[in-house]
């Protein structure tokens, strides 16, 4: 029975990883015909081409810029909103939570299309520029906000509400009290929210596709690559991205387990 379970687990992981492995192997494929299925020797040519490709580098720059700006904006706006929502009375809080949850359950394509309609209408009304960087940033902030709020709110609920009042009773004005008492308590939630916002923004395709105009982000560029031609450059790009992500995840995991260990040791010492 145990062996069966192990085989089952292994098979599912093969299913999950085989396509990625194939992508990686064929990124080193030395072929003139860009055949996707025959391996004919090792080369790093596709990687060289990748780093010479001006469009890819530009798309990468756009993606990172949008991700940083929208993650920071969504985190600030979302943290404030979470603090505000946490203090609301029951009914208005319910309304706010429904509005927050709505973009998460609404199909992405509908969100994308609806924002496209708004931006097109706005450029029609106010003149202004066409869809591009600014619409992408607005759209990304909007779909990241709920994730920030939902990761900050639980931390606020866990917090002892008397702490903030105690600080004020002891003579600390409200705004410094917030920065000195509340913010450190909810910081883990804020950081989680920011990381989530950042990764969601980097990975987003559907909403960007409808709000980007002619601006290229990496996912949009990948999409045009898969449609236009079959190039092992895509494989090289996937490999680079995969290695970066894996390194990042391992780093986070190691840091986390280290922190947990330290905490455990601290607990033992007590």
């Amino acid at each position: 029975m145990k062996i069966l379970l192990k085989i089952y687990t292994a098979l599912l992981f093969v299913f999950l990883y085989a396509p990625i492995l194939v992508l990686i192997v064929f990124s080193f494929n030395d072929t003139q015909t860009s055949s996707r299925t025959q391996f004919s020797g090792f080369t790093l040519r596709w990687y060289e081409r990748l780093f010479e490709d001006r469009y890819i580098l530009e798309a990468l720059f756009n993606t990172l810029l949008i991700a940083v700006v929208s993650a920071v904006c969504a985190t600030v706006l979302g943290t404030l909103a979470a603090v505000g929502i946490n203090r609301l009375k029951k009914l208005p809080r319910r309304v706010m939570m429904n509005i927050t949850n709505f973009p998460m359950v609404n199909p992405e394509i509908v969100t994308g299309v609806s924002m496209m309609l708004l931006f097109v209408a706005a450029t029609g009304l106010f003149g202004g520029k066409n869809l591009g960087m600014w619409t992408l940033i607005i759209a990304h902030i909007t779909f990241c906000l709920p994730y920030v709020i939902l990761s900050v709110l639980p931390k606020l609920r866990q917090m002892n509400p008397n702490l903030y009042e105690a600080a004020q009773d002891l003579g600390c004005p409200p705004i410094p009290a917030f920065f000195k008492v509340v913010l450190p308590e909810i910081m883990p939630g804020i950081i989680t929210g920011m990381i989530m916002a950042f990764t969601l923004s980097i990975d987003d395709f559907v909403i960007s596709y409808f709000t980007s105009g002619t601006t290229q982000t990496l996912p949009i560029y990948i999409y045009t690559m898969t449609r236009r031609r079959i190039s092992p450059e895509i494989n090289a790009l996937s490999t680079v991205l995969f290695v970066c992500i894996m390194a990042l995840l391992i780093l986070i995991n190691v840091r986390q387990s280290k922190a947990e260990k330290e905490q455990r040791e601290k607990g033992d010492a007590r």
Partner: protein
Amino acid sequence: MRNNKLICAPYTVWMTLFIIVPMGLVAFFAFTDRSGAFTLHNIAQVGQYSNVFLRSIWLGAIATAVSLLLGYPLAYIIARANPSRQSALVMLVMLPMWMNFLLRTYAWMTLLEDNGLLNALLTAVGLPRLHMINTAGAVVLGMVYNYIPYMILPLYSVLTKIDPSVIEAAQDLGADSKKVFLKVIFPMSMPGVISGVTMVFVPAVSTFIISKMLGGGGNLLIGDLIDMQFLGSAYNPNLGSAISLVLMVIILICMGIMNQFDDGEEVGGGMLL
């Protein structure tokens, strides 16, 4: 504290501008024609595409069922594994999700093609080639592959919280393993099943890339239809809005039904306690 309400204000304004107003625009476009006059023509036209809607719902439902059947055992195995290995296994489930789904779907194109790797493997073993790409099956496979982590993760987080002593109690009271699963474990994991099912079903029904890349032209889904009206050849935002509106209503109805189910379970559990 009078500044409380003000803290929420920027967010409220933001969400009104960029979530509520756009939804209003979708509704407005759905019920007007090109000149802006009220019409029910768009909504009536959606009826023509009922086969596309049925296909999307059908393929989405199959993909959800397959994800549940494949994902549940794995979630259970991970939840029962040695605690030190659990987080590594969960990370292994999540890692593919971090790769852009376009690339992952592209990888499946390589595997499923008529001259693809799977067919090369089949001929190497001496089996006849299969035509896999551009079929409904390939679309379902792509959906399952892309969305199965969304099924496994909520299931795992529910299953890992089940107190082992509850299962032991059932065993002590004479339940065999089948009964323990059907009467104890599965009902207790219901919240995870429900969130997993919605998290797979909603994106699967509304996808438009997977069907385009793996399904060829013959497996048009709702998402492709919407895409065509806004950025494709059949430019018609009014019809596109009407289709989006209907899609949204279908999804909300499905979620409503699922939540009903969830509440029922909770009430049942509460009554037992």
